[in-house]
């Protein structure tokens, strides 16, 4: 370990300050909201959304301008003693996705609260804004974190922000869902923490880039990684560890569900990705990747069927989330790379990243559309929604477009992602994965179709909303859905942008 101490593992880049801002800005907002009270909460939130978007854009611009990862060493204390923040291309893509979804969700939340001005300074709206900011901060911290323990704290921050979001409306079943979520997430966190302890015990550092250069001997490293990955799997709700997700994501208010389903479960996946690709020795990573892919495939098939069987719209979307998460895990064997080609140079890596982002956009759009529907009709029983497309054309369109992306129908980000994954499966000789991808697409088509069919139906008695829904409430969903579709226009080649700052990115060539 020690030879590395002589030569700093991280050299701060000028743009690194932006990473601190990305993490701390929402924290400042949380503190301000708490200090100034409910009357100011929403104004602070909207201002933070605007500034945060600007910061994200600045990070993106800086990354593109310099063509290398942004790095910051907090307090000037070099790892392993201190903590570094680092954003490579993939991280920045995550940051941008997060900012977009959070902003859209914020707009939806704002519009929804305007429907009922009497309670807009009440418990649920005020808590929502504070928690939303905390989620944002936690996500940013996770996407730029380099230190395993710092990531643990960020993960816990994320959990504590996400759990109260689930039970914001105060119904008993959402309390149960939140409690189940909290408990299982805690179990996951503790396993992760245990792994961290073991890693520190054998390497004396928690810095990811230092660990990636460490040579692993003996059983400690595999056991530690296994514990951490298993803990993160529990938080990512991969089948068969999805017990908490459907009730939690279906029970939460729509805007919260959108953030939870689109972003929150991506954070643990992102960390698994980093652990497998950056920390684990390549040989071990290959075997573990196979195992994760089996779970991912099971998740796709099993939970798609479950989504198909749901009577309630939000439960259906929630199960679909578990299924779609499965696609991310089948990336591991597909992006195994080779001597000349690192994993992040493969088309499967691009496909996986696109799947992650397009799912985030599409799923947020779906939940927001479902929120508008529930707002209009007071329920979300799919069978009783016949003809909702007439009253809520924008929501129906948003749902349909988002559905295209989930199904993998062109032109959409989901299509390009699945196309790339399928190609990787065919080239790499993984017929079962190819079959799974296709079957998942079919099942997704079926469950999306069930809803679209209801939207287009014209029942004898037209379905009248209980209150008028303003257009701006529906617009956020449409914007996200259109963004998911527009992603389909990105080039089919590996996204060079995603490889910025990855090790050896110079040797990465397009296949």
């Amino acid at each position, binding site marked *: *370990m020690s030879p590395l*101490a002589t030569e700093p593992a991280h050299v*701060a880049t000028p743009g690194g*300050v932006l990473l*601190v801002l990305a993490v*701390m800005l929402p*924290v*400042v907002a*949380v*503190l301000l909201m*708490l*200090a100034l*009270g*409910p009357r100011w909460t929403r104004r602070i939130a909207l201002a933070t959304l605007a500034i945060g978007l600007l910061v994200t854009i600045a990070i993106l611009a800086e990354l593109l301008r310099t063509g290398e990862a942004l790095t*910051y*060493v*907090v*307090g*000037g*204390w070099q790892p*392993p*003693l*201190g*903590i570094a923040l680092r954003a490579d291309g993939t991280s920045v893509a995550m940051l941008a996705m997060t900012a977009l979804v959070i902003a859209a969700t914020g707009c939806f939340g704002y519009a929804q609260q305007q429907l009922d001005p009497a*309670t807009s300074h*009440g*418990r*649920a709206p005020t*808590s929502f804004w*504070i*928690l939303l900011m*905390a989620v944002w*901060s936690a996500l940013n911290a996770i996407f730029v974190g380099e*230190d395993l*323990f*710092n990531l643990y*704290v960020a993960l*816990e*921050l994320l959990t*504590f*922000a996400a*759990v*109260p979001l689930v*039970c*914001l409306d*105060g119904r008993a079943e959402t*309390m149960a869902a939140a409690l189940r979520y909290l408990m299982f997430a805690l179990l996951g966190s503790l396993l992760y923490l*245990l792994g961290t302890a*073991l890693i520190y*015990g*054998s*390497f*004396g*550092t928690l810095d990811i880039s230092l660990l990636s250069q460490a040579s692993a*001997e*003996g*059983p*400690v490293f595999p*056991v*530690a990684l296994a514990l951490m990955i298993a803990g993160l799997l529990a938080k990512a709700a991969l089948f068969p560890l999805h017990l908490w997700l459907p009730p939690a994501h279906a029970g939460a208010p729509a805007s919260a569900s959108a953030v939870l389903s689109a972003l929150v479960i991506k954070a643990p996946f992102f960390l698994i990705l980093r652990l497998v690709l950056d920390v684990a020795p390549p040989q071990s990573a290959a075997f573990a990747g196979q195992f994760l892919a089996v779970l991912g495939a099971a998740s796709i098939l099993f939970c798609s069927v479950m989504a198909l069987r749901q009577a309630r719209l939000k439960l259906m979307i929630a199960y679909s989330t578990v299924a779609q998460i499965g696609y991310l895990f089948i990336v591991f064997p597909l992006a195994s790379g080779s001597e000349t080609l690192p994993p992040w140079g493969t088309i499967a890596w691009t496909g996986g990243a696109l799947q992650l982002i397009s799912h985030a956009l599409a799923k947020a759009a779906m939940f927001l559309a479902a929120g508008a529907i529930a707002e209009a009709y007071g329920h979300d029983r799919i069978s009783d929604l016949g003809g909702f497309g007439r009253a809520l054309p924008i929501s129906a369109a948003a749902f349909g477009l988002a559905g295209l992306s989930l199904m993998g129908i062109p032109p959409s980000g989901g299509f390009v992602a699945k196309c790339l994954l399928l190609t990787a499966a065919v080239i790499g000789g993984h017929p079962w994965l190819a079959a799974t991808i296709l079957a998942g697409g079919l099942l997704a088509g079926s469950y999306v179709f069930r809803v679209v069919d209801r939207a287009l139906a014209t029942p004898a008695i037209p379905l009248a909303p209980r209150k008028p829904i303003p257009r701006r409430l529906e617009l956020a969903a449409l914007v996200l859905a259109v963004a998911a579709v527009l992603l389909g226009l990105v080039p089919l080649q590996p996204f060079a942008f995603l490889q910025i700052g990855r090790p050896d990115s110079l040797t990465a060539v397009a296949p």
Partner: protein
Amino acid sequence: MSLLLDLALVAWLLALALYVTSARGDRDAIVAFIAFGLLLGLGWTRIAALDVALTEAAIGGGVTGMLLLRAEAHLRKRKPGGPSKGVVGKAVTAVACVMVTVGLMLVVLAFPSPAPTLAPAAAAALPATGLGNPVTAVLLAYRALDTLLEKVVLILALIGVWSLAPDGLWGGAPRLRPALVPEPLAYLAQMLPPFGVLIAVYMCWVGADAPGGTFQAGTVLAAMWLLVMLAGLSPEPETRGKALRLTLIAGPALFVAIGFLGFAMAGGFLSYPESIAKPLIVGIEAALTLSIAATLGLLVAGPAQMASGR
């Protein structure tokens, strides 16, 4: 001799933990857990971690125990839950847990020797912070970002707890004071707090150079505050109260502010200029102690149960 003591301590810890799995009632389990926490604090001193020992005793035995006992009292009228029925499932789980334990033990035994350590690095950097207690240096300088985020976690947990209040009561005050305050409790609440505050101030102050520090001090303060509220000597604060909220955020806000000032003074976020590092850190610690005390106290007090006065 000391090995014998260690072995006895470990045996007690394991016995209490096993008792928690098998105790009939939750209260018995919680009492066992409080004893467990105190013993664990003793255990931490055996492995030369005095700061942790103080924290563990204050938290594991103290505040967590109080929280759990209050919850148990709240849930008194329920049907007993108990372990799940399936014997086979339990047996399988037991086997799995034993395997996990054995695996972990093997890993613990397989740690590399000599052990990797950052102690020399921490010691070498200590002069730059002006501190004498390396744990405080890690918490407030080397890994200050962790500590800062952890404070946000604490505040967020509080916001989560508050958000659980029924809509009508939100912004109101939690209820700690029992219907009838026992005479001795009131007496204790008058006697103890001056000592407690003294100890807290002392702990916070020496934390820079000796075991102790902001979190331990904050916990003691919180305990004193809770005691006073329990005895009905001071009313429970309304969660909407401005002063309360300012106290809550004072520490983290100062932390963040000094962190950002670091850009101007020392060329980076959360870096302290070497000459005034120690006063800055002690200042942050003092503010944090207040905030932590308020946060911990309110976390134990729970969500609002009385409607706002206004």
